[in-house]
């Protein structure tokens, strides 16, 4: 029990840090749109190498809205499964402790 209380407290601190890092990054990044790092790489290749991609995406979301839909869906499915699992082992442990 003592261990669990300690772990819980540790997790609060860690999650706080997880929040702080991107927020600080937002300020340090300054006046930027925070585009993807891979997009910048593509620009580098395009200008340095005069390279033209020889293969195109099989399918691309038609626009930003559909893209963000698919991204949220990915996050939602992931979070759903992850927390289902955590709930499952929590319930299992509680049931075992009751015996």
């Amino acid at each position, binding site marked *: 029990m003592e261990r669990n209380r300690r772990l819980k407290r540790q997790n609060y601190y860690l999650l706080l840090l997880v929040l702080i890092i991107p927020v*600080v990054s937002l300020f340090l990044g300054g006046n930027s749109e925070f585009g993807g790092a891979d997009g910048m790489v593509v620009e580098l290749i395009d200008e340095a190498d005069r390279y033209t991609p020889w*293969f195109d995406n099989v399918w691309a979301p038609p626009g930003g809205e559909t*893209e963000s839909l698919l991204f949220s869906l990915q996050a939602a499915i992931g979070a759903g499964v992850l927390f289902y*699992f955590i709930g499952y*082992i929590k319930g299992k442990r509680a049931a075992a402790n009751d015996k």
Partner: protein
Amino acid sequence: MTKKNLYVLLLVLLPTQAYSMHIMEGYLPLQWSVIWSLAFVPFFLLGLRSMKRLVALAPEKRMVLAMVVAFAFVLSSLKLPSVTGSSSHATGMGFGAALVGPASMSVVGTIVLVFQVFLLAHGGLTTLGANAFAMAFVGPIVTYLVYRGMKKTGVSLRVALFLGAFLGNLSTYLVTSIQLALAHPDEASGFMGAFGKFIGVFGITQIPVAIVEGLLTVVVVNILVSNDFIKENDLFSIKGLRLFKSKVSAHGTK
């Protein structure tokens, strides 16, 4: 029209850029695409075998695998702003390596990458081999080796886990930069010049993101430990899973 409105309008009108940290479709010449795919195939097959063994050993493992994929899904959909003014995302591979071992992660990572190719147009089919090599093979292996190495030095297991996930994430982007530099060497300064350029874009952006990945890995492992799902000492070993199995059957006989 105010300047601000103009920016907003531009933002809406500009074609959206794909934000993922993998090599984009078509950006590796054919020969490199083939080379990296061939290099990854043996590890994928090894991963399949190790996954089968896991599931045979402990059928509950399927649920753990699902959770590992889910964690990777969540993390790779969160594109975090970084200090350089660009965004990047974590991979979730370190966490998976800790729970199901680095070998199985080659399959898990490939699943995540394929999902992103077909539904999000991030990464690509022609670059799948290279991206999988960097993310699904090198990342988990580095995490595993760092964890093992740090454990020997006697630091706390959480510090070892954090460093493993942190360096695993960074190593993925290091390999990506190498792959890009090999395929697109600089005209004047050759491979090293190009490598410097690419690591300049990925490297600094990736550091805060890798720290977040390390922290979140420890958070979720903490949750699993406090619910008696896994013992801290059994991370990265198959023993941890056996333990889960025997406990389940022990409860069954009570």
